[in-house]
């Protein structure tokens, strides 16, 4: 792209859009320290809501559930999705077209349809709704996203290093492990991050497949937004935001160090 400085109006415009994106979050965080319960006017600084949050058993349980589901579904989906990406990007086999289409269906289907179909499915086979059903559902929608991202990475992959490795005597497995995987690792990690985000954030599909004691943070936050409407929700949101920022900055920093 041209190195010419973009027009002033464009810069201002972009800044405004960033503001549009960030202002709600800033307001949310600021008001988590608000003394007033009803969240209308500012009444004074307090950490009460954070305190309440840490003693809230429901929230702690939801956090534990959300994290467990996210980690497990991310790991499984990343492994399976990466394999699928490799398959689609480098091999030809009978049923290629069908496999590719099949894999992209979860991306294309509206979430509500996927949610109710899974609900119906679990109901039919009499499988108890709970953490397991949520995790299984998350894996289902995560696999295609991981595959998509990894495929994009594989696209410019130069096979000659693999060939070189094999010429030097390594077999497929070793080549894969020592040469291929490290090279595509950024893509795999991006895919994993995407899967993690999707899982942590998921509301609709989780809503349909959740059972007793398996409430997740998005579900819990939804309840809190609808019912409690006290700054405790803000505190939870602010914490979530803070943790996310910290993790992402750490990973960005690490990435830059590597580069």
């Amino acid at each position, binding site marked *: 792209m041209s190195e010419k400085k973009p027009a002033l109006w464009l810069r201002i415009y972009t800044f405004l859009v960033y503001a549009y994106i960030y202002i709600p979050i800033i307001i949310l965080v600021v008001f988590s320290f608000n003394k007033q319960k*009803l969240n209308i006017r500012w009444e004074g600084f307090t950490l009460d809501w954070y305190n309440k949050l840490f003693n809230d058993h429901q929230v702690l349980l939801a956090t534990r559930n959300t994290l467990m589901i996210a980690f497990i579904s991310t790991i499984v989906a990343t492994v399976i999705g990466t394999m699928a990406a490799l398959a689609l990007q480098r091999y030809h086999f009978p049923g290629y077209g069908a496999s590719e289409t099949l894999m992209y269906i979860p991306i294309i289907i509206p979430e509500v349809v996927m949610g109710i179909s899974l609900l119906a499915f679990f109901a039919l086979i009499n499988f*108890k709704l*709970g953490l397991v059903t949520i995790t299984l559902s998350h894996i289902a929608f995560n696999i295609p996203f991981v595959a998509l991202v990894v495929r994009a990475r594989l696209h410019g992959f130069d096979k000659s290093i693999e060939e070189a490795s094999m010429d030097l005597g390594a077999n497929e497995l070793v080549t894969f492990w020592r040469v291929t995987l490290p090279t595509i690792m950024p893509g795999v990690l991006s895919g994993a991050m995407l899967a993690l985000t999707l899982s942590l954030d998921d509301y609709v599909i989780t809503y349909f497949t959740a059972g007793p004691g398996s*409430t997740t943070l998005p579900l819990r936050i939804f309840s809190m937004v609808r019912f409690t409407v006290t700054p405790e929700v803000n505190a939870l949101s602010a914490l979530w935001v803070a943790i996310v920022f910290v993790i992402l900055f750490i990973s960005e920093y*690490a*990435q830059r160090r590597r580069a």
Partner: protein
Amino acid sequence: MKKIRIVSIVMLLALLMVACGAQKASKVLNLYAWSEYVPQVLLDNFTTATGIQVNYDTYSSNEELLAKLQAGASGYDVIIPSDYTVAIMIKQGMLEMLDKSKIPNFANLDNRFTNPDFDPGDLYTVPYQWGTTGLAYDKTMVPFEPKRWADVWDPAFANRLVALDDEREIIGVVLQMLGYSKNTTDQAQLDEAKQKFLDLKPNIRLFDSDSPHSALLNGEAWAGIMWNGDAALAYRENPNIVYICPEEGCGIWFDNLAIPKNAPHLDAAMAFINFVLSPEASVLITEEFPYSSPNAAGLEYLKTYDAALYQSYMDFPGTNPPSDFLAHATPIRDVGDATTLYDRIWTEVKGEE
């Protein structure tokens, strides 16, 4: 590889943190109830007394409860269905019979509320709270003080009403306003109700079953069709809130504790129900969610526990309905196949732009 290391360390830390925070309780009770209905302090007291940890999942309507249970969301131990839902559940064999010997606090109940027509003999349920569905308004904000349901159709209320997001309740209000039965299955009457409902829609600012009093309190709405407890909560924050049972009649409902069939923790469930019926638990409920209490012993205890609260409970028509409220109050009853007719009206009106 540094990135991987960092990410994995963070993940491990997070897992550790969370694992320590919420240890798996060996004894657990799964409660599935309306949101804003069971005080956390009551659950905590129960845990302290019995060592059983309570998981509190929520639903916003009886229909949601029924749908989830029918869909196979098993594993719940205690649920709180309303009268007509109990009737459906009993018919479908969805409830466990209660072992009264394990629920001695049953005696605390006011016997006006025991042996209801939807559960003769109290075989499956015990009353939890009861109440009315009426009209609440902020007397300083409304253009005039409404006395009848018909009043809120007035254009002066344009876009200033909050209504429960509950098709049976709201369509029921429209039917009552027209002088028909809240549980009619007559197509002509329902068609008329649909038209009237469409006329009301411009006045409705939002539908909300979860926290309708918030809209009243933050000024979004000036009046609302809501349950008595919501109105009472609003009244506590703003003494200008008035709750009435309009002349055409309001709704009346009874919520009950019940145990779904094949609940995994049957004994814990009975123990919980017994605990809730104790006077100490009863006052906690009234403190936090001021619906009407069927617990006579609880109300008696309230006199000494918190005299001011007792007084305001008795004074506020939401919590302590006078007889003229109850004279015209109608409960919701299941209408079987006609449910789809109501649902259709609901969809049509909401879909109307």
